[in-house]
């Protein structure tokens, strides 16, 4: 009897139908109960678990406190798949300003806020159908990564 995988599939389907989070959000944002350092670690491992490579992390913090922010912990994580970036930047140079993908991470007290542009919102500006599918795929990955963060970090972070 191998009904188990099937049941699992149905369960996943049923769940994905009932738990659709708010669509049409242009900026996807989640709050992680982990502090900034732990969030950075688990974000990077979640990104890699989803098959992307972290290209670099840009610090955007020097001088933030001088402007009245209570935190100076602000980073932007750039990530992508080499083959994808190469192919898309050649076929659609107008995508380049959004490549590689980015997630902004900033501390709010002991918690961390993690945000990203919803690729599907960008997709509305592009006419090509192939891009629609690409944007949707990115959206799914980003939502999954952000949901890892919301749940307090991915498995890898749990090992710490």
């Amino acid at each position, binding site marked *: *009897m*191998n*009904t188990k995988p*099937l*049941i699992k599939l*149905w*369960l996943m389907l*049923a769940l994905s139908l*009932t738990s659709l*989070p*708010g*669509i*049409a*959000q242009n*900026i996807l*944002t989640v*709050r992680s109960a982990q502090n900034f350092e732990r969030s950075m670690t688990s974000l990077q491992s979640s990104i890699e678990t989803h098959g992307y*490579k*972290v*290209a*670099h992390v840009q610090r*955007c913090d*020097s*001088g*933030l406190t001088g*402007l*009245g*922010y*209570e*935190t100076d912990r602000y*980073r*932007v994580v*750039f990530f992508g*798949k*080499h083959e994808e*970036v*190469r192919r898309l*930047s050649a076929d659609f*140079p*107008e*995508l*380049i*300003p*959004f*490549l*590689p993908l*980015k*997630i*902004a991470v*900033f501390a*709010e007290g002991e918690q961390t*806020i993690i*945000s990203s*542009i*919803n690729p599907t*919102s*960008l997709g509305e*500006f*592009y006419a090509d159908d192939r891009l629609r599918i690409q944007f949707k795929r990115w959206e799914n990955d980003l939502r999954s990564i952000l949901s890892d963060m*919301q749940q307090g970090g991915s498995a890898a972070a749990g090992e710490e």
Partner: protein
Amino acid sequence: MKIRSVAIALIALACSPQASAAPDGAALYESNCAACHQVNGGGIGLPLSASKLATVSDNYIKSTIRHGRIGRIMPAFPELSSAQVDAITAYIRSWSGVAGPQYPDTPLPGDRRRGGSLFKIYCSSCHSSDGSGEGLGTGVTYSRGRSFAVMPPAITNPGFLASASDHMIKRVIMLGRPGTAMKSFLDVGLRDNDFNDLVSYIRSFEAKQRIPSAAAEETEKSPALMFDSPNDFATTIASIKSAIEGKNFRYLPDRHLEKGLTESGQVNRRQMTIRYCNFQQLYKMMRVEPRLGVGLPCRITVIENDDGTVQLIAMNMRLIAQLFNNDQLLEFAEELHEIQLDIIDEALL
């Protein structure tokens, strides 16, 4: 046999409480609202505190979810079903355990002009003379110092005006919002007709509302600005840099677009990103919109195509800024957009 077990599993699923019961308000709140309002209604935005809940109706909460606050960060949630909106509202309501007040929908009669004079005396110091709120940001905005624990909101906001009934607005002015600078104006000594006049005045903001899409329509719809360079790859890069310096901006080390995604020997060397920055400008924007980092606007990429032509590509900031639902960001984005175009113009001379 196989099919039958699946059918049974499906029936079991349909009967299990998770799958069939009313939508789970707590889970919906968690996925749609908590990123800003935290798990308990604190966090970004106006606090959803017990004392506030005691003065707002369920209809107000539901309508706020539907409309959001245009230009004030909170998005609208048109895609949630009524059952889902009801569930979220009931969940928020459960924090105080007390049923919300109900207000009649009837308009209050009042003298709008007199209300305007009262507004100037009692309200404009915080909500500004045109009702558009005070200072940068809205409510409680991220981790930065504020002149108020909770920033006075824009009471001209279409989302607010569409959601709040006259009677509710009157109640808010009478009782204030404990724990914030919004005090009780009953205690200040205002009287019933004063409140009615103030409400009439606040209602009159509705007529003056600008149409937010007017600006959007003018904006070039392409998310990328692309230009052909008359020069070769290296010269184009050099002239962008000198144009950046000419604007008193600083540039960061160049980066190939693919850098970090593969071994350095494999990187496409004909795509170079020039990142520049005027920290003051950037931070002005970050103050009103900390999520700005998701876009990192100040980048120009130079590419050399197979036929030897060279192009320059940058983000269309005016368009992208609109995704943030934050009016205060738009002005800054406009400034930066102009600067970006100037740099490009000069580099292409």
